[in-house]
């Protein structure tokens, strides 16, 4: 009841627990709670509610807020959260389902994110889905089921559920993907298409790319991290101005009312922005792919067609078009990557970790540092190089070698000479 008042907050609604394949063992409720604060996330998806063991763990470690959300029980809260970051964190029951089936003569693989308000709803849906497939094998279960049928089952089991097609442009596992997706939402969801009110843009596309399809105008473009480890939380997220309740969040996502916009990766940094063939190190812009007849110039195999290419293929508007009522977005680079860039090292280095902790202890959570903190404060807590890097990220002045065929893009904020120069300047003072 305390949180009924409308407020501006950040929500990352699609993550995975330790019960999903290839996720970090650290993805437990306590860690989600902790890292949400470090990142500046107020509402986080639980992920994986279809997994019985994870749902049991959630049931044990969280309690309902009474507004369709969950919060960590006091006894599980750690006390080592930097004072600068401490904040309330809420969870919304979420799960991603992979449907694999054949339709209209092709294998289709579509991922969808589902939200429900109560653990009892999750149980009810799980019961229905357990008749179709094995929910125990993976936190993101694979079902041999038409995505449209899944939508129907979800709405039957829980009318308040929210169903969002996940990372809609990824080539292999999404509703509009080049390899096993459809050319339109209608082809996939048919008469149930109107029940889809939002789509997740995924790391390799940003809202501006999606604006080029008039068919998507009626949908809210949401962004989530799809994190498999705690530190990746919030790499994409949504900014809302609403009550902290399931109903309000759902309404904001469905209507756009109270949905302020999104925090985005630079799409070039995503794994499937460009086309190419990873094994051969061949990275192609869409035009080059067409010129090469969709074949890898090194080995002759078919290249993987990326998101930019796919968007251009389905787009009915020119590059740069912005529809009325489009929500603003912030393109950011995760702070550890920015710090690593200032040192010219990898993100996993001790130096980066030390500097990251220093910044959040002094300035607050990561989103605050990336978006709001005054530059002089950043320089004081970090370094002139970090100040300059964040300033450039805020202005979108970064160079990125685009990601392709499963390989993340490579960011360059500084040229080597530049980095020396800025360092040198500061030496003078």
């Amino acid at each position, binding site marked *: 009841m305390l949180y009924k008042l409308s407020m501006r907050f950040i929500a990352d609604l699609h993550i995975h627990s330790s019960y999903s394949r290839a996720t*970090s063992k650290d993805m437990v409720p306590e860690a989600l709670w902790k890292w949400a604060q470090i990142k500046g996330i107020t509402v986080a998806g639980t992920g994986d509610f279809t997994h019985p063991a994870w749902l049991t763990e959630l049931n044990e470690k969280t309690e309902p807020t009474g507004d369709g959300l969950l919060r960590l029980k006091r006894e599980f809260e750690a006390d080592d959260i930097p004072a600068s970051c401490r904040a309330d964190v809420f969870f919304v029951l979420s799960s991603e389902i992979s449907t694999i089936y*054949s339709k209209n003569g092709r294998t289709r693989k579509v991922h969808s994110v589902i939200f429900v308000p109560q653990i009892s709803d999750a149980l009810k849906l799980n019961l229905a889905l357990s008749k179709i*497939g*094995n929910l125990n094998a993976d936190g993101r279960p*694979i079902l041999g089921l038409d995505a449209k049928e899944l939508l129907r089952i979800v709405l039957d089991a829980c009318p308040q559920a929210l169903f969002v097609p996940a990372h809609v442009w990824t080539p*292999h596992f999404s509703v509009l993907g080049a390899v096993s997706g459809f050319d339109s939402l209608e082809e996939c969801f048919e008469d149930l298409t109107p029940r889809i009110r939002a789509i997740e843009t995924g790391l390799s596309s940003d809202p501006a790319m999606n604006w080029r399809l008039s068919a998507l105008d009626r949908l809210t473009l949401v962004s989530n991290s799809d994190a498999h*480890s705690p530190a990746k939380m919030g790499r994409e997220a949504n900014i809302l101005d609403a009550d902290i309740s399931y109903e309000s969040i759902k309404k904001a996502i469905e209507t756009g009312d109270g949905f302020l916009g999104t925090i985005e990766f630079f799409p070039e940094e995503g794994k499937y922005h460009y086309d190419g063939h*990873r094994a051969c190190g061949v990275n192609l812009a869409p035009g080059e792919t067409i010129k090469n007849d969709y074949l890898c110039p090194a080995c002759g195999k078919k290249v993987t067609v990326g998101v930019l290419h796919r968007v251009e293929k389905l787009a009915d508007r020119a590059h740069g078009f912005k529809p009325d009522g489009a929500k603003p977005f912030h393109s950011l680079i995760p702070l550890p990557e920015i710090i690593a860039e200032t040192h010219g090292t990898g993100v996993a280095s001790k130096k980066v970790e030390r500097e990251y902790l220093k910044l959040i202890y002094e300035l607050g959570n990561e989103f605050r540092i990336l978006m709001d903190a005054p530059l002089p404060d950043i320089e004081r807590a970090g370094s002139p190089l970090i100040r300059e890097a964040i300033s450039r990220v805020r202005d979108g002045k970064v160079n990125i070698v685009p990601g392709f065929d499963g390989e993340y893009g490579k960011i360059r904020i500084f040229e080597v000479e530049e980095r020396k120069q800025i360092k040198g300047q500061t030496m003078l003072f």
Partner: protein
Amino acid sequence: MTNAEARILDGLNESQRVAVTAADGPLMVVAGPGTGKTLTIVRRIAYLIHQGIRPEHILAVTFTNRAAQEMRERTVTLPGKDAAKAFIGTFHMMGLQIVRDNTPHDFVICTRSDQVDLLRAILKDKAHGRKANETAETISRIKNFLEDGDEETRAVYDQYQAALLENNAFDLDDLILKPIGMLRDASILQGYRDRFRYIIVDEYQDINPAQYRLLRLFAGDSGNICVVGDADQAIYAFRGADVTNFLNFENDFQGAGRITLSHNYRSTATIVNASDMMIQNNARRIARTVCPVREGGAPITVASVPDERAEAALVVSEIEARIGGTSHYWLMNEPHRQDYPDSAYSFSDFAVIYRTNAQAEIIKEVFRASGIPFQVIGSRRLSEERTFSDSIETLKGRAANIDKEKLEKAFSMEELIRRALNELGVEDDNLLCRLLMSIIPSNDASTVQNFNDAMKMVRLLLPSDDFDPKADSVALMTLHMAKGLEFKVVFIAGTEDGLIPYLRDGHDDAEEERRLFYVGMTRAKEELFLLHARSRFLYGKKTNPQPSPFVREIPGAFTRTITVPDKAKKRHQKQMKLF
């Protein structure tokens, strides 16, 4: 030709058309795999009706509920007034009908587990019930073979029959045996001969002596009996089915005609020809030519793998390759990607088939770990996955305590079943309800009128009814369960000497085993994998089996061989981690 007749004959090939339109009198249709057997039967029913035969005078019997259901569904879509009034069902359904007609009081049907319980009490078998199980098997054999049994068994048999009588019960075998007795009454027999004037028998090669006797009674010496089957797919010798009945049909029924359906529409030419070359090594068969309609096809893959785990892993990875990977992690593995770029596979296009249920454990384990959806068909004992059989067992177990009056007020069969399931507290009512609805002849109100009748039908369900064709998942089953099914890609696991042919107590029936393998091979439409492990843990022992001799009977021109080397030690992968 009238419009309706044209529709009935539409799309049939020459021999199918001859079989469909053949005149009265005994007829044998030799129908190999994929030759349009069900199509032919269904069209023949429609044709008979079109010729003015009343549907009530037609009896079509088959062995599985699945086959009966398919036949019923397809029949009603064809022209023909009241086609649904034809009796299309399993031998057990037909037997149940006769027992009902001629039993003045209500009764119950006991399943194999009820039988074993009764026998345990009779034999005072308090241990594992092994003795009771064996005795149930022997009694079943006596009833199916119409044998007398030795003196010792006879004593138990009599006690068992007395117990059934006391419980007002019939076992499944009684549903064939009792009618034979009932038809000794000439007027009753004449009644059924008047009713079932046209008889069609599916899978005639699997008929046992008791079923044969019953049909014989119906048909008389030169009746209108049309049998359809394939000597090469006779796989139930252990249940008393003898391929001899099929081979002898033309002597049995004088003046019988014979038509061979030889065009295989199901499988690629490679699979058709390879399996045909293999089965030609059998002596007891009706020689026939096969003629693949589909040309070419990928060679059959004969795969040698280190052990049973590697065998299951290879199956999973071949499925992943055709689906195009089920996860990003799989796609990061370069060698397999893009092998099937424009594929249209779903999980139900794949089946893994093995000789014994004991092989299923490791396959299930590997599938479970892969996350690929799968269903295990007909292995109640082994499966922890809930199957139809489990639900049916639950239902049977709880049925005794049900409040029947609540159910009698139901408006429709579906409602009746739903209420019954609700009352029983069975959770997966949708699944079970769908199944029950599908086995109960929809328009035949006389068969099922109340809950008791519904329960009788439930008791006719077979392990093979586990297969849910609407579940989009990979099917795992034994060779016996695979009969009548088809899949784009089939993996036969454990094609090893000792498993295929299966060696029991030092002896095997090579021809029966070869037929079983033939049934397995001919399930495949596009691709067939025959896997053998160089080392296998079986029945508590490590073995080093040789490849199946049947695989060697397939000419090399139809196969390609792959060998998965013994595994090297896995390198441990370090996980990158921030903080």
